[in-house]
């Protein structure tokens, strides 16, 4: 059996009084929705995987390699946030180019890769545009294009749809599903919307109060009536 893309063993993180604990294994190539009430530790889980947060104990293993002491840039991970993914004073092409060379020294081949990536996310010809002149959905597409050129096998999306209106959410989810199928990358995304889970995910991690409450296939998750936190998330409480 191949190594899982992500394996967290007895990982714990402390925030003052609060203690978060994670233990899970995510197979390579899967698309996983990370859900749960706010404050449950979803972003912290991402921070641990991406290397922004150093666990107090336990180990983080990505594709069989222990990540202890590895800088965020040296991990096989790209991350996209809800907002502010793009440097506002740099053009779309420069923002994507940073994914090829973090000092922004690109040759002709690099610039071609940037244009190809823009075209792939449906923004052909947008090279010179500044983020301020793009819609929220277009900005997120540019961020995805940057993740594409980085070619890291794990993609973390921290509420990538939260700032978008419903039509754009559906578009973005469709684009993500296509890219996931093409690149075979391992995709994790945080969401508050059950419909995003149905559109995109094969598995669901449900977090509550700093631990993983449930790790299940998406069909199983969506039909659950318990525990109460999950029923509430799916809109089935109080009825």
């Amino acid at each position, binding site marked *: 059996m191949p190594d899982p893309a992500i394996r967290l063993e007895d990982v714990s*993180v402390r*925030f*003052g009084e*609060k203690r*978060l604990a994670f233990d899970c294994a995510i197979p390579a190539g899967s698309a996983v929705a990370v859900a749960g009430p*706010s*404050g*449950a*530790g*979803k*972003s*912290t889980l991402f921070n641990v995987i*991406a*290397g*922004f947060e150093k666990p107090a104990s336990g180990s983080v293993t990505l594709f069989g390699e222990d990540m202890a002491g590895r*800088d*965020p*840039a*040296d991990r096989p*991970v*790209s*991350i996209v*946030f809800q*907002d*502010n*993914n793009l*440097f506002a*004073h*740099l053009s779309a092409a*420069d923002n994507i180019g*940073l*994914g090829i060379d*973090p*000092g*922004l020294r690109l040759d002709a081949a690099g610039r071609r890769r940037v244009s190809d990536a823009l075209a792939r996310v449906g923004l052909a010809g947008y090279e010179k545009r500044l983020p301020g002149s793009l819609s929220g959905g277009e900005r997120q597409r540019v961020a995805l294009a940057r993740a594409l050129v*980085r070619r890291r096998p794990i993609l973390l999306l921290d509420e990538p749809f939260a700032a978008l209106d419903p039509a754009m959410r559906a578009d973005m989810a469709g684009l993500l599903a296509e890219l996931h199928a093409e690149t075979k990358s391992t995709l994790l995304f945080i969401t508050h919307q059950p419909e995003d889970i149905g559109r995109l995910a094969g598995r669901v991690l449900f977090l509550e109060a*700093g631990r993983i409450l449930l790790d299940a296939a998406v069909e199983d998750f969506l039909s659950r009536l318990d525990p109460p936190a999950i029923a509430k998330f799916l809109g089935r409480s109080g009825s």
Partner: protein
Amino acid sequence: MLFARAERRMLDIAGGLALGGVVVFVGAAIAVLLGHAGASGGGPLLDAYIGRVARFTLVQAALSTLLSVVLAIPVARALARQRGFPGRVWIIRLSVVPLGLPALVAALGVIEIWGRQGVVNDLLRLAGLQNSVSVYGLAGILIAHVFFNLPLAARFLLAALDRIPPEYWLSSANLGMGGGAVFRLIEWPVIRRVLPGIAGLVFMLCATSFTIVLTLGGGPAATTIEVAIYQALRFDFDPERAVLLAFLQIAVTAALLWLLSLFGRPPEEGMTAGRAIRRFDGRRRRLSDGLVLLLFTLFTAAPLAATLVSGLAADFGRLAADPMLHRALATSLAISLASAVLSIAIALPVVLVPRLAESGDAGAATRLMGGALPAVGSLILLVPPVVVATGWFLMLRVLGETGRFAPFVVTALNALMALPFVVRVLEPAYRTHLSRTARLALSLGVTGWRRFLHIDWPALKRPFLTAFAFAMALSLGDLGAVAIFGAEGFVTLPWLLYSRMASYRTADAAGIALILGVLCLLLTLPSTAAERPTERPRPDA
């Protein structure tokens, strides 16, 4: 509609009084100066002198600005990057202190450290270097100006860097951007945007700096226009030259204000909260950043510490029995209290009448005042205090005793000097307060005094006290207006300190400087220290 009928009438009267009072006060001074200017001939000798003074004024201001702003960049970057640096909060608090310190006290502190008997020259001698650094002249002026403005510029830059979206730092770490790339692609674009405003402000402060140049420069080779005015009036008694210099000063400040308006306002200092800022590019630079912060702390804290140490060594028993000190202290407190009250009294119509003029049924007079009063609020930036004081000095000289009228002129001048600051504190506070409460208060019929007592004062207590405290501190530490009028019967605390320094009674001077410094910091620090909320990382935002 924000005001009741009776309130509108009151505001119209107050606005008229404020506008008329300030215009007459400043206008009379300028009229007197104009009258004198007609009598003067000039001559090539005078032209050469004035040219030299004007050149030095601009050169020292340019060098001070360059040094302050360029050195502020590494300090701000280190503070922005090292979020967990031990004592970081205290370094930021320390950088507020020079702002509240009278220039004279700071100059004394700079002499203690950089002067002939100072620590720096002791160290140089230990190292075997004989050529000691001289604190008098251009070098001393630059050191003192950097002491004031480097922390100011660093705080503005830090605020700008802290407004960078926190996700940028996560993205840059994820992308693996190195220190050079982070500076070039993230920090520099932000710094470049705020730099012209900061540099313009610092240049303005340095070009009109009086006390620093008076104490550390002053020779013919190191004199600015303001100090030259003072010397022309008080030493050479050459009113014609003083008048010529006064108009030169107005021309220079007018040009500077015009340039400043092109650059835009200095950036806001406000903090944006939201997601906690976490920097990943600081780990490898802890050593170099630590060194930068250590040097900055030493540079800023050393003159303060020296003021404290030599002040405590003074003979306070003798000082306490000194009737001169009692008189100076009483005079300074009375003038600073009166000028703070006057400043706020003028500021209220400056802030409120423009709001009154916004409503549809405002009369022509109200509209006119609404347009003119904000300009009155910053008139003193265009016509510096030393210039107005010169006009009044020449006018009152004709009447005989200048000393008798001095307290009133100095009080009015100090009030005008504080006015731009007082307005900047009260204006935004009143604006939000009125938009929240004015209509409700009107509909309930709570107007006039009752409105002030029950609705305005409880909500606006903090900005009022902040403005009052700063206006008092500014007046307490002011030497410029007093220096022009300084007479036998009229002695303030800074003037006493200055004359003790001039007569080499250094122990007394150190004691008085400590008293003055502590008084001013007691007034200014409480409101500045309480601003910052503590930063703590939170799980899951």
